[in-house]
Structure formats: structure tokens, C-alpha cells
């Protein structure tokens, strides 16, 4: 039995609620945009309900500490059916009274869940590190990223606390949404197709601060000068900074570097 939900966390929580309501504990939650109808399978469309989702969330809060409860949200951001399935199963076990299950690392679902958490956490940490702001002419600092998982919600607090006195936008190009800090509050923003392409090729369309290129240049110079050639180890370098992240790292754009 497939439970087709809208792809939101509240939708996923609603699936858990419905499973108990209908005693369909073998259900497999899958988001509507990933679901390929299967003629042999039965499916049910789950309508997201804030009330039902909140009841599940509160139920988890009564049974788990804050960290473990948040872990379900973090694992959800991994955006993978198998992980959604594993956390769905764990959630059901917890509501059935098996609240200690999350520390049973001998269990396959627990391992799947904890691996997903590990990967999400690593990606979140990477995004704290690899976000590179560019300063636009109007003083706005903007950054574009394409994280493997949907970690943008997990880094907002970090950037808000750190860059409090400057306005910034961080935009996830893969998932087509971003967050905007105006020095007072954070809001979610969505750009139309044209604007987001413009952001990616920022220097050509968005008008940059006149000093921007100067500091990019200085940073590239620093990156080069702080390297020790006698210790060259590209394998290690690539492991720490995988190629898929290079696109948005100015220090890895060697086109205009001077020696």
C-alpha cells in the first residue's frame, strides 16, 4: 500500500496519523512527484492536515527528547523514499511503545535512519562552510547553492546569528527557493526562472559592488599563497572539497587568477 503525500514534512507526519487511523502499518509513504503508478500496487492519496501532523508531532514530543524528535525532521530532509520508509517504521514502533528503538544500531531501519542523519548533518556543515556571499551594488549579500539534501532550513539560524548586521539571500537553485534576511526577520523567497538564472551568472546580470571583484581576487591570491606545494595531496583535497561544490567557490575558479 503506497501512501501518496505532497512531499512536505507535514504531509509525511499525516501519513503516520493515517496509518494508525486505518491500521495500515505496512504502508509506504511516497511523495506525489516521485510516485510512478504501479498496476499491481494499491495506493491511497493522503491529504496533508496540519491538525493531524501536529498531533503526531506532539505525540513524538511526549515520547522522545527534543533532539530525537528533530531527527525525524532532519532525516525527512534527506528526500529519499527508503529513508522516509525507515523513519515511518521507526515512528510507528515508537508510538507502539518501543521508544528505545532509536539506539538499537543492530536494526537495519535504525542504521538507515542514522546514516541519513549523518549525511544530512555533513551536508549542513558543508553548506555553513561553502556558502560564498557576493556583495551587490545595493549592499545585499547573496549566495547560491545546490546542496545534495534539502538542508537550507537547517542553516538559517547559523547565518542569522552570524551575519546579523548585513542583509543576505541564500538561494537553493536545485529546489528553487531561498531565504532572505532583511536585518529584522527571515522570509522565504522564490524567484522566477529568469531571475534565478541571473543569480547563477551573477556577475553578468546582477550589478555587483565595485569592490567585489577586488576581494574575490584577493581571496584567490590568499588561497594560492597559503598552499604548501611540497605537501601537495590532491586526493585529500578532492575528498574534502568534492568537485560538485566547485561551481560556487571563487577559490576554485582559476580562470582569472594571476600568479
Amino acid at each position: 500500500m503506497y501512501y501518496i503525500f505532497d512531499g512536505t514534512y507535514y504531509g509525511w507526519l499525516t501519513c503516520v496519523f493515517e496509518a494508525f487511523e486505518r491500521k495500515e502499518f505496512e504502508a509506504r509513504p511516497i511523495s506525489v512527484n516521485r510516485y510512478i503508478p504501479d498496476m499491481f500496487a494499491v495506493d491511497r492519496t493522503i491529504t496533508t492536515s496540519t491538525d493531524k501532523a501536529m498531533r503526531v508531532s506532539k505525540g513524538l514530543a511526549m515520547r522522545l527528547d527534543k533532539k530525537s524528535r528533530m531527527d525525524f525532521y532532519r532525516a525527512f530532509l534527506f528526500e529519499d523514499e527508503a529513508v522516509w520508509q525507515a523513519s515511518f517504521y521507526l515512528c510507528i514502533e515508537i508510538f507502539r511503545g518501543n521508544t528505545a528503538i532509536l539506539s538499537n544500531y543492530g536494526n537495519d531501519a535504525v542504521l538507515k535512519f542514522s546514516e541519513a542523519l549523518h549525511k544530512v548533518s555533513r551536508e549542513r556543515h558543508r553548506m555553513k562552510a561553502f556558502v560564498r556571499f557576493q556583495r551587490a551594488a545595493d549592499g545585499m549579500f547573496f549566495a547560491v547553492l545546490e546542496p545534495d539534501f534539502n538542508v537550507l532550513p537547517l542553516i538559517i539560524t547559523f547565518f542569522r546569528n552570524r551575519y546579523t548586521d548585513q542583509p543576505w539571500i541564500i538561494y537553493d537553485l536545485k529546489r528553487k527557493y531561498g531565504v532572505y534576511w532583511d536585518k529584522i526577520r527571515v522570509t522565504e523567497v522564490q524567484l522566477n526562472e529568469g531571475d534565478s538564472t541571473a543569480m547563477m551568472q551573477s556577475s553578468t546580470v546582477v550589478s555587483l559592488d565595485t569592490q567585489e571583484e577586488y576581494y574575490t581576487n584577493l581571496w584567490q591570491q590568499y588561497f594560492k599563497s597559503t598552499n604548501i606545494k611540497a605537501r601537495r595531496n590532491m586526493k585529500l583535497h578532492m575528498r574534502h572539497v568534492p568537485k560538485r561544490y566547485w561551481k560556487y567557490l571563487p577559490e576554485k575558479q582559476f580562470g582569472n587568477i594571476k600568479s
Partner: protein
Amino acid sequence: MDRLEEKLKILADAAKYDVSCSSSGSKRKNVGGIGDASSSGICHTYTEDGRCVSLLKILLTNHCIYDCAFCVSRKSNDIQRAAFTVEEVVKLTMNFYRRNYIEGLFLSSGIFKNADYTMERLLKIVKKLRLEERYNGYIHLKTIPGASDEMIREAGLYVDRMSINLEMPTEKGLQLMAPEKDHESVKKPLHFINQEIQSLKQESKLIKHKPSFVPAGQSTQMVIGATPENDFEIMSVADTFYKDYNLKRVYYSGYIPIQNDHSLLPQIGSKPPLVRENRLYQTDWLLRFYGFQLDEILNPTFQHLDLEIDPKLSWALRNPHVFPVDINTADYKMIIRIPGVGRQSALKIIQARKFGRLHEYQVKKMGIAFNRARHFMRCADSPFQLGYTSMEAVRAKIVQKNPAKAAIVNSSQLNLFS
């Protein structure tokens, strides 16, 4: 090239031999300005040598009155000299920080005129950042040997970490390379700052808002392979410094040849001792996080670390009587001593075994290096071993299974912290 860019090139190049780039250990909050310190530290990028870039690491100047043979900025070396102004350092730091290039500033300097004069300049930069720019990001400041206590104490109120380098592991080694220097001038400020930190800790129990003083603690660095100290001597010094001065870190920096004029130093072209450096770091970790005592790993009869295998495995092979460890009954302290089992996996084992005896297939998935660990642990379904496998045979099996590592030892290419 723009003049500032030229200075950055020279003064970053001169600072890069200081390997410390850690930005961890401080919890400085953003109080109405910009920046904070992430207590776990963040590496914003990695250079092609695989080292982390967390801080903007620069010298204020590479002019220096000293002539230490191992140092690229020594007085007699014929190189380009430069000096930043206070404003330039502040401008670079703020503009890099605002773009999220860096976690903060690592500021060191050659000694010009005298220690206090140099320290005063460094202090000026730090104060300008904190007070005028309202910058709350990380600052790692070098303590200048010989600077006055007052100056050091004031600096400690604004920075997150301070460090001062031992340079050579022993006094004798230092005498060979830098006759003008001695370890005493390093110990004195280390001791002074440690005392200030400790006394503040005592007081903070009594007062509510304690001033922050070097919240991320102190560190030091030793150059490895320039002078003939062996691993036992090196680690003994490190062990003592950890204990005497509550250091957060001791860094080991494999010597990279920079000159051919000194007959005792390795010549240009000889490879830096990267594998040895890695083994020293592994030993350091065993001492700090794995409950090992130094004499278990290195002692007067065993003075050199095995380059081919890691120090924990080496210890295990020398102590067959404590193995195999039964992971279903042993306590945490013993489980982390199994080669190939780390602290995280050990914690998982401890938690998971409450649900039933653990089998090999389960433990395998908990992130352990099974190829190494299998020889030293027993799971619920491990076959009972008849007879006795010699530790030489175990060693041969492990090394054979991992020929890549052996190749690394020979080519001196390696993955640090892997």
C-alpha cells in the same frame, strides 16, 4: 599586482608553515555586531595540500630580528619583505569574513624592533576589530615571546586562542637551529596565560559575568624531522606540555626544507616526513581521547613509531594477552582499544547490545574497520578459534589486505586524519 595583493601573497606565504588552523573551542556570541564563533569550528575550504583553511592566516610582517635556521623569515634570508598596516589587516579580515570565506583571523608576526613593540601592534589590530568593527568572530593570536605580562593579559581579553611555538621538540634541538632562543621564553607566557585562565575559572564560580579570557585556550607547535629527536622524545615533550599548561592542542609540523646553507638541516628536495607526522597525530589522539598512557605506546625500549601501521594496532600486536575483546560484555574503555574501532562505533555497540547479543554482520555496519578489528574482537557468532594465531601473522594479514597504505609509506603521500 595591487600592493595589498602583493603583501597578502608574501605574508600569507610566510605564515603558512604554522599548521594550526583550528577555529574550534570558543563560544563567543554575536553581541550587536557581526560574527560569532562556532564551537565545533568550520573549515571553509581546503588547499591543494589537503589542509583545512579556516582562518585568514597571515603575518603582520616578515621583517624579523632573529635568525632561526628553520624559519623562512629569518634575518639572513634574502626574500621579499613586507608589512601590513593595521587598517589593511582589519579591512581584509572584515571583507573576507562578510563573504563567509573565513571563520576568523590567525595573526602572527616576525619580531621587529622588540617584543613589546610587536605585541602592541598586534593588540591594536585585535582591539580595532573587536571595538570599532564590532567583530565577534574567531581570533587566534600568536604570543610574542618576551612581551610584557600586561600586554599579554590585555590581548587575552579580546582573542579566542593564543599560541606560542616550541619550534624544536627539545632545548638541545632549538640550540642548534636558533641559538638566540630557548624553551624558557615559551614556557613563561604559556604558564602565565594558563594561570590567568585557571584563576578566572575559580573566580567565575563566585561572579556572574566573568570576562572572557582566551576562551579557546592555548596551543603550540613542534617542527618534526629538522632535528634528530625521536618519537618518544617528541611525545614526552607533548605529554608534559598537555599536562603542565592544559594545552588544547600540540601541532606537529613535518619540516619542509627551505634552505641548503645549513649542514644539519634536511636539504631542499628531500621529502617532508608526512607519514611520521600522521603517526604522531594518531598517538596524540590516543593519549587525549582513547585513555592511553604515553608509556603504553612509546617508552625507552620502544622509541620509534611504526610507520607501516597505526600506533593503536602496533600497541595491540605487542599486547596479545588482552585480546580478543568480547564486544558483548567488555566495557567502553576496552572496546575503544580494539584496532579499527573508533569512539562513535564503540558508543553504538554499547547502546545496541542492550537489545540483544551482537553478531558480526551487525557490527560490520556500524562503521568500524572490520579488516583490522576482526582479529581483536569476538562477536556472538565469532567462530571459536582453535590454536593460536601469532601476532606476526595477524600483522602480515592486515598489511597485505591494505597494500595501498604500504605504498603510501614509501611515496610519502598520505591522507592526514583519515
